[in-house]
């Protein structure tokens, strides 16, 4: 029997997801025994043309990490979609845009200008900007920079999601197992994680008082954290309650507040909106001024509430107007 064919591809992301695959450690050998990898630019020398040659639907599953930022990403993922039975958004960036997705708070021009002209370390007196096409000696075409970064599922149809920044080896392994078991869950499911939030598996959940109410917001580097007490009750912004469990509450085990890399649960459509709702709800003040006072301590609302999910949010990022100039 032919082994299932697997493709792996890296879009806009930090590369941590690629590492995460390797983090399977000795289990990676099991994986390699079970599947044929037909495309993995980071590790194996297959070219896009090789994929183009494959018959449609011949790849069993494509694991795509990173958000869609460049025209190239769009091109390749559409190709992989065509060639694959299943497309799996692997990791937070692919699923919701991830940290790079915060770039959606700025438009393309702003980003370009910042990166190529304004960053202190840039030496670019002629203010040269990257071009999509150059015709000096030969005609060269470079991938274009899309107006916004998008999660994978807004570009192609996605079958499953594997959460995490990056997905933990455990989650990765469990999702592979699920896929290989042949007993496929409904389309759109999240693989390898829980249907409940981080609190469910967090050991500190039991230390919560009966009523969780907080009076202040503290940043983790400014307090001595008691690792044996629910971080929320120590006025730390823990995204645990609003974030999908399955990570094994790793961060919380080392007294680091959850930042929400496993994304929202099934019933939540806008992670940041829900997170804000939950956090504001327990802010124990009746007076607007007091609330404002606490909120003024936030370094960055979007970075806190939409750290991994801005491009998948209801508004995708800083709003753009149709037909605008």
């Amino acid at each position, binding site marked *: 029997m032919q082994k299932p064919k697997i493709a792996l591809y890296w879009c806009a992301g930090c590369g941590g997801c690629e590492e995460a695959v390797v983090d399977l450690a000795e289990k990676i050998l099991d994986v390699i025994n079970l599947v044929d990898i037909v495309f993995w630019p980071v590790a194996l020398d297959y070219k896009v043309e090789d994929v183009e040659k494959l018959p449609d639907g011949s790849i069993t599953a494509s694991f795509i990490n990173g958000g869609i930022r460049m025209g190239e990403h769009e091109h390749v993922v559409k190709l992989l979609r065509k060639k694959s039975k299943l497309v799996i958004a692997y990791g937070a960036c692919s699923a919701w845009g991830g940290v790079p997705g915060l770039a959606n708070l700025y438009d393309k021009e702003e980003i370009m200008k910042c990166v190529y002209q304004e960053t202190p370390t840039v030496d670019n007196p002629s203010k040269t900007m990257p071009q999509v096409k150059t015709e000096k000696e030969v005609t060269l075409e470079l991938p274009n920079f899309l107006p916004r970064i998008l999660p994978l599922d807004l570009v192609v149809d996605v079958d499953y999601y594997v959460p995490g920044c990056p997905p933990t080896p455990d989650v990765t392994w469990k999702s592979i197992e699920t896929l290989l078991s042949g007993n496929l869950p409904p389309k759109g499911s999240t693989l390898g994680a829980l249907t409940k939030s981080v609190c469910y598996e967090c050991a500190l*959940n039991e230390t919560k008082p009966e009523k*969780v109410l907080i009076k202040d917001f503290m940043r983790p580097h400014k307090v001595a954290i008691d690792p044996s007490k629910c971080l929320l009750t120590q006025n730390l912004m823990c995204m645990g309650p609003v974030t999908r469990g399955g990570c094994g509450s790793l961060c919380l085990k080392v007294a680091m507040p959850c930042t929400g890399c496993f994304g929202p649960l099934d019933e939540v459509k806008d992670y940041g909106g829900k997170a804000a709702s939950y956090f504001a709800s327990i802010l124990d003040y009746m007076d607007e001024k007091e609330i404002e006072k606490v909120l003024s301590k936030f370094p960055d609302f979007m970075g806190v509430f939409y750290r991994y999910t801005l491009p998948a949010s209801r508004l995708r990022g800083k709003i753009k107007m149709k037909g605008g100039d």
Partner: protein
Amino acid sequence: MSEELRIGVYVCHCGTNIAGVVNVKDVVEYAKTLPNVVVAKEYVFMCSAPGQQIIKEDIKNFKLNRVVVAACSPSLHEPTFRTATAEGGLNPYLFEMANIREHCSWVHPDEKEVATTKAKLLVKMAVAKASLLEPLSEIKFKVNNTALIIGGGVSGLAAARDLAARGIKTYLIDRSPTLGGRAARLGKLTYTEMKGIDVFKGLIRDVAGNRLIDVYTNTELVSVDGSVGNFKVKLVKNPRYVDAKCNLCGECAKVCPVEVPDEFEFGMSKRKAIYLPFKDAYPRIYVIDMKSCTRCLECVKVCPVGAINLNEKPSELTINVGGIIVAAGYDPYEPKTGEYGYKLSNKVITLFQLERLLDSEGPTKGELIVNGVKPKNIVFVMCVGSLSTTPDAYPYCSRMCCSSTIKNALVLREKYPDTNIYIAYKDVRTYGRGDEQLYMKAGENFVRFAKFKDAPKINIDQKGNLSVTLFEETLQEEITIPTDLVVLVVGMTPPRDIDKVRTTIKIGCGPEGFLREAHLKLRPVETATDGVYLAGAVTGPKNIIESIASGSAAASRTLALLSKEEVAVEPLIAVVNEDICSGCAICVAMCPYGAISLKIIDKNIRVAKVDSALCKGCGTCAAACPSGAMQQYGFKDAQIKAQVIAAMGEV
């Protein structure tokens, strides 16, 4: 949902109220184009009997499983159409209403076309929501028709008397060794020749020996579980050390060597460690105050009937009741030492002490003797502890003190015509029936009134002579009144330890600690917690008549609950999806009614649990729930979002 959606839409003309502005025909045609709508009709008055008939028939003829009526405000006719839907054979909660009168035709009379568009949008929204509605059934509980009354003062007694008269089994508890509360200690009452004790005796006549009323004195509340109609109450009965064999011979008190201040007389006389709280105390059994008892056993030796047992232990008991009346009363404001010279001179007393001194059964047998002499000049200082007169005072008005003061002034003038009585007041609030006449009578009897703004000063010189200095506001003149007796007219404060009762039963209180009614005006004896009622001064200052009336009123509301076989609650309450809920407990803090708790389902796995009897259906827990596990029936995320989405787009 496996069942195919079949929605019927009915658009009401409401005479010309709607049809005069909105093109109803257009709306009906539009409704027909909406997904899952199988029939859309218009009628001149949907709420009228024929209009309702159309709905009922269509449910059968078209096999409808959702009904949408576009008419007036649901606050007006939602119940009407719910009933019609149910009579048509459908679950009443599969009905949705679009408000195209109050929200459309009546407010946009000049823009007919746009109003029609808006009406379409409103119908579209209602249809979108209707598509996602679920059948719900009212939550019903069997009612245990017994009641618990906490507090044996006049309001509690009145409530017990009235409930028992309608055949309700009632438990009446009081933490002190006797019933009677504070009213029993008052002397002559304001409007009649009766005394406080007479009111108490009048009420006790109906309560004592009533087989429907179980009286537990020396008893305190431990815990309350359950909800409206079915409370499980744990009580602890503290020992009395004397049992019912007591024949009131009083031999024990004679031999008891311990003397302590008598709290019934506000410390103005002494009692023994074994005592009868007052002459007409109920139950009529002596009691031992273990705090002061030396266990010398003298009483045990002399008791002719062997009623005394010093080894009695507290006992716990559990009762099940359907309703609870809290009639915990009030405490008089206790001035701080030095506040108005209180406790610095024994010629400064409170109004309550004066009541005792003037009572023929009081420590002086009704003679006003202070410090061994009959005072000739008496100054009453009103609003002590009220109206923010001193830094420690409460901001509110204690309501009953004006007329009590005037009554006492008149009693004094009658009994001792040569006394000079001054009343230092801030505002004379004789609001009640007959009070104004009393105020005038006081004037006629040369009770002198001096109005102050800032609290009067009580001066005590080295010889112990007293005078009261105040700035008379209406004369703009400082006056000093030399006096032999200062009576501090103290206000009413929430009873000490009321918070323990309050948090045990889960009811709210106001800023000063008086218990909070469900609605200050229209539900004055109910609380936000169903099945818990309030009587007497525990909600705020009241006089005896008002306390008794509110006791009866609380009994009336309790009876309304307890005379039902079962209680039904609207099912628009919160519901947890246990598959999603992680037990993060965020919702628990949200609930103002304490309806959410965490339940342990497996080892350490916790999920939120909604007590459907406590939940009032505000939905704030659902808005807070970080995982979307908490939802509200009738207002689920999906249903609301469907409405929001439907509100957009072209029509």
